[in-house]
């Protein structure tokens, strides 16, 4: 780092930070991006599915590249609802989902984010890896730069300070700098984040395609419910990559602590599930990993900007776990924050009242509307346990009874089904759950 003054500093090289940096650099702003990993993506992990539209909004000539930064198109998706030894599968595919260009792809963070870094460099961003930002420089109530953990030069052993009138925080879920910037009053609690673990599994050659019925240009992305999370609020996932699988599971962090569940034991339990085990036979683990997902939602939302500072992506909590949105929201928020930085430079004013162009734009977008609409999601999931601990198992039992009813009086079978439902949830419970689910889905 020779020069230490820039127009914009972006902290963090994930999709949110890259989107912000690319947007700024394309408008001619002198932009530096600081990333603590050895390369952009080295510290990042997700399920993961990337939505094409969000990438196109940042890189319009995406499909002119000879090699795409993705794995497989997602052409079939849905849910596998697991009981202890069975499954009810609800997945969907149609011609639209198989059209080109695909609307979603499976991907790996270490590859996708590194590719985004290349796009950023092309746009003129100075991407500097292996540098950690340890603090913010604040003067007269304005964030005006960052303190790094790297020395300024060979001769000067003091930690280097990098200065810019706008600092964009794309620090990820552990929003430490956002707290220092005064954007969030407190740290999150273990009830507000999900801890997910994932394994990348290599199957013997050709087995991925044959076991999951895939062609070269088709792919499967399913969420695993019920036994995957031991009936606790949470989900598993199974995504097909080019030649391997991503299998993972996540619960609220508090539930691992309360029930003494080891995340890797939970994942192993899933791998040994009678339905999954044959699909994973002879699989070799290429990589294991873990990540926190910010699920504090609307009520835990950080302030989006302050004097000289903007926050984007996971650091703010822009995630919709119901619809598997995160990476796309990170990109959209990065673009909007970048636009506010450009506007501030045009005006020559970097105060909150200028930068809140970003806040206004985000509040006008579907991202904020969804956050508000699903503001009760966490409470709903944590209070309505039957959706995880009763219905997945009940559904399996009911379907089993129905599908094995041959050779019996069907009236007796239906009676048995009704008894089962009454025993496990009861008519009042069922009706109550229905009403609560409808109220939730209506956004009340």
């Amino acid at each position, binding site marked *: 780092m020779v020069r230490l003054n820039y127009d914009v500093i972006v902290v963090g090289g994930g999709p949110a930070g890259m989107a912000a940096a690319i947007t700024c650099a394309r408008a001619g702003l002198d932009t530096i991006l600081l990333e603590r*990993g050895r390369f952009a993506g080295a*510290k990042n992990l997700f399920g993961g599915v990337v939505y094409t539209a969000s990438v196109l909004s940042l890189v319009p000539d995406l499909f002119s590249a000879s090699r795409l930064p993705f794995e497989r198109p997602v052409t079939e998706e849905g849910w596998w609802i697991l009981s202890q030894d069975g499954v009810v599968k609800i997945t969907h595919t149609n011609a639209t989902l198989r059209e080109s260009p695909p609307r979603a792809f499976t991907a790996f963070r270490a*590859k996708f*984010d590194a590719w985004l870094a290349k796009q950023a460099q092309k746009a003129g961003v100075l991407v500097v890896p292996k540098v950690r930002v340890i603090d913010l420089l604040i003067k007269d109530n304005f964030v005006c730069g960052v303190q790094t953990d790297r020395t300024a030069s060979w001769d000067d052993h003091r930690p280097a300070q990098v200065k810019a009138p706008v600092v964009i925080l794309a620090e990820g879920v552990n929003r430490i700098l956002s707290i220092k910037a005064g954007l969030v009053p407190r740290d999150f609690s273990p009830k507000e*984040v999900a801890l997910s673990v994932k394994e990348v599994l290599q199957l013997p050659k050709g087995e991925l395609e044959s076991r999951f019925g895939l062609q070269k240009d088709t792919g499967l992305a399913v969420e695993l419910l019920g036994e995957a999370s031991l009936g606790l609020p949470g989900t598993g996932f199974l995504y097909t990559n080019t030649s391997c699988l991503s299998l993972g599971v996540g619960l609220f962090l508090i539930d691992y602590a309360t029930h003494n569940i*080891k995340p890797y034991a939970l994942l192993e339990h899933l791998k040994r599930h009678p339905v999954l085990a044959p699909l994973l036979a002879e699989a070799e683990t290429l990589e294991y990993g*873990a990540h*926190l997902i910010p699920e504090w939602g609307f009520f835990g939302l950080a302030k989006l900007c302050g004097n000289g500072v903007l926050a984007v992506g996971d650091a703010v909590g822009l995630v919709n776990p119901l619809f598997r949105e995160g990476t796309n929201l990170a990109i959209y928020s990065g673009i909007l924050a970048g636009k506010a930085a450009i506007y501030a430079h045009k005006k020559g004013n970097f105060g909150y009242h200028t930068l809140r162009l970003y806040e206004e734009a985000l509040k006008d977008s579907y991202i904020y509307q969804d956050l508000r609409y699903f503001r009760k999601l966490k409470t709903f999931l944590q209070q309505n346990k039957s959706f995880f*601990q009763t219905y997945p198992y009940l559904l399996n039992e009911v379907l089993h009874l129905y599908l094995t009813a041959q050779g019996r009086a069907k009236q007796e079978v239906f009676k048995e089904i009704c008894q089962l439902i009454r025993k496990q949830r009861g008519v009042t419970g069922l009706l109550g759950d229905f009403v609560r689910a409808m109220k939730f889905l209506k956004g009340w």
Partner: protein
Amino acid sequence: MAARALPEVNIDDKVFTLKYYVDEQKSHLSLRDPGLCLKCAQKPCLSFCPVGVYRLDAQGQVVVGYQACVECGSCRVACPLHNIKWDYPRGGYGVAYKFG
């Protein structure tokens, strides 16, 4: 939650698949007061840490194997006594995912 016996897993086999650049000079995780852990009955850190950074030694003391840390941040907020001094590793050190 219905009681389940989850399988025993040797987490070291999983950690083995990860690539790390370990900072040999400085641990980014430490216990503020190691004595406090002895008073913690539940010790949830032994469970929730996804890479088993926190383990018990022969004397029943919690020990920190920061080398395996994937920097997720769970222990930063889930230690009931807030006894874990948490930091990111120095720039360039720590985990480096190949896939992620």
